């Protein structure tokens, strides 16, 4: 009797596995289709055929500092932001390669260069784009082999995370107008003022990726601007190695590129959402200043001419 019961349970388990696997494929296909039709920046870049003159790369500091509609206004050029929260230089390099494979090379790439991080979790979060982004896929295989293997077992697993949800949120509207609209609270300011001294560490692999991004831009005849967006002054005052950090970035970028250092350029705490990010009212004067300083000036001819 027990043998019969065990066989019955095993059959039930097999039936469940079959249903689960079939559903996994079907649901993942439907989810991926929805995601690819989204107006989320990664989906738009993956669909291809973009011809933006200015391409923005970087992490959340780039998202908020280079507020795309304002960037378009002050520079007078079409722009597309591929920047995203937590985007390390290594991730930015992979995304740039995939972008250039599908879209017209931009005339100017603006990279917020403090994203020389050692956290590459965004690569994992972008699992939904692995199957259609060769460079990102290769990076994922190198950094997260177990997640990469899991994505082959369950296709739904690739849709796991914030990016897919954001994709659904931006099904019918662009995400290019993202900007932080929060204002500094006295508490955050107090925490920043009382913060301990800290050192900014740039891992070698990220600095090397920065060098490769510069080389890739040159290879594709795009100009590149390496910019450091403002930090909350009360916070960045505690950085003990600022000059050394900027010098390290400069070495990684190579002698032909300048680091446009605006790290201490904004002293108005009302322009910040928190210690790391400008808000909308800080992004506007910052972009206007960049335009005045010639950061958006382009010398090269449009690509293809």
């Amino acid at each position, binding site marked *: 009797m027990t043998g019969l*019961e*065990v066989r019955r349970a095993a059959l039930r388990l097999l039936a*469940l596995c079959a249903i689960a696997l079939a559903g996994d494929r079907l649901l993942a296909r439907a989810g991926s289709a929805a995601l690819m039709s989204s107006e989320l920046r990664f989906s738009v870049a993956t669909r291809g055929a973009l011809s933006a003159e200015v391409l923005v790369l970087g992490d959340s500091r780039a998202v908020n500092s280079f507020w795309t509609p304002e960037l378009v206004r002050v520079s007078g050029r079409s722009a597309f932001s591929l920047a995203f929260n937590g985007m390390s230089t290594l991730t930015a390099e992979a995304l740039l390669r995939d972008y250039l494979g599908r879209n017209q090379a931009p005339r100017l790439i603006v990279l917020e260069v403090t994203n020389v991080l050692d956290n590459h979790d965004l690569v994992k979060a972008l699992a939904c784009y692995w199957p259609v982004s060769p460079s990102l896929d290769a990076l994922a295989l190198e950094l997260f082999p177990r997640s990469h293997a899991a994505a082959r077992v369950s296709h739904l697993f690739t849709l796991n995370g914030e990016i897919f*949800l954001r994709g659904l949120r931006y099904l019918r509207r662009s995400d290019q107008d993202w900007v932080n609209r929060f204002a500094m*609270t006295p*508490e955050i300011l107090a925490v920043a003022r009382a913060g301990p001294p800290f050192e900014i560490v740039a891992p070698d692999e990220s600095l090397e990726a920065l060098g490769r991004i510069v080389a890739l831009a040159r290879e594709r005849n795009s100009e590149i601007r390496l910019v450091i967006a403002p930090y909350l002054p009360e916070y960045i005052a505690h950085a003990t190695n600022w000059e050394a950090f900027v010098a390290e970035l400069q070495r990684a970028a190579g002698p032909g590129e300048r680091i446009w250092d605006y790290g201490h350029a904004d002293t108005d705490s009302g322009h910040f959402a928190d210690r790391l990010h400008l808000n909308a009212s800080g992004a506007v004067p910052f972009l206007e200043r960049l335009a005045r300083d010639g950061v958006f000036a382009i010398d090269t001819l449009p690509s293809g001419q």
Partner: protein
Amino acid sequence: MLFNSLAFLVFFPTFLVAYLLTRGALRLWLTLLASYLFYAWWDWRLLPLLWFQTGLDFTAGHWLDRLESPVARKRLLIASLSTNLLLLGFFKYANFGMSTMQALGGALGFSLPDVKLDVVLPVGISFYTFQSMSYVIDVYRREVRPEKSLLRFATSIALFLHLVAGPIVRARKLLPQLASDRKFDAELATAGFEQLLWGFFKKVAIADSLAKFVDVHYAEPALFDGASLLVATWFYAFQIYCDFSGYTDIALGGAKMLGYDLGVNFDRPYFAASFSEFWNRWHISLSSWLRDYLYIPLGGNRGGTLATYRNLMLTMLLGGLWHGANWTFVAWGALHGLYLVIERALGWRPSMIIVFPATCFAWIFFRAETFADAADVIHGIVARNSWSLGQVQNQVVATKGALLIAVLIAVEAASFRPELVARFRSAPMLRYGAAAAVLWAIALFGTYSGANFIYFQF
């Protein structure tokens, strides 16, 4: 070994097959050795402590049965309980006690040295110590016959499914089930598998997703607006519930697949309409343990109104301290004690609308690492609150958390309707569909960071 680890995904099916292929003493040996392997996965050096407590209470049980003199029996009981409590106290509370003494000395003007022992807290010590102690007390009370087989007794204490985070299964419940081979029952195993899947969903999809939001907010409460902190506190209420009841569901479901019934540990606690009902639904194996071995021996409600309040407060204070060596846990217990006293004093059944927010308020002390952090959270919620959900940070993550909580509430609310449950149980296709949907949800919403279960630290 964590339930939500790759190692367990290999360990459990392998054990299950071997378990089904063996019988009698061999099956018990297999279960015991597998349980020790499961435990040793963290740190094999902790095993001797488990062996010592098992041997101590097994022997104490035998002697308690043999001795006739009430005085000698009482002495033996006290010796056994003291040893168990001393071990628990040393490993769990030694540093806490010394730091408290130092702080107290400082307040009184004495300068005491800051001594810290380098002691590893053995995983699950609070759970298996309480389980083992309840056996000795039950034998002393002659409510349970002493177990003759050390193999069976050791298996009942070490069974990997309940060893590290409960439920605290009483000897009278588990030992009889270990006395004979459990027959494999496909229906019970299916129900167990469904419960296990639901437990994984609660832990990996809900609890760990909410943890991402909660951890950020509780790490630096001063950085967030009151609305964000309020949402983080609500989320924590569901995080800890899904974390712990998820663990319990995996344990109970796994046990059903082996043919064991370990009881119920959570019964939809946030639907409780009173605080006493909450404690009849939350961590039932602990609250019933505290009732039977602490509250009632203290006098329960037999000594008049004030004595009842004192007993309630003492039980809840010690229940709070059981959770961790920190005064914040004691404050959490004190708040719940106070809730119970007020409820009893007013003869009042407050309703869910009062019980849930009050429970959330108490969770602030449970989650915060210090009173200053708890005060920061409360101050933020009260003083920096625009009462607008628009101020909540990372709204995509917050929305996902809210949706997952909504699913949980919907399923739990539906389970209050017996006709719906019966219809579900009698519809195989619906059950397949539901199980597959849970698997899809785990793939789609799960967090795979190998996060610990919160109750492991207790």
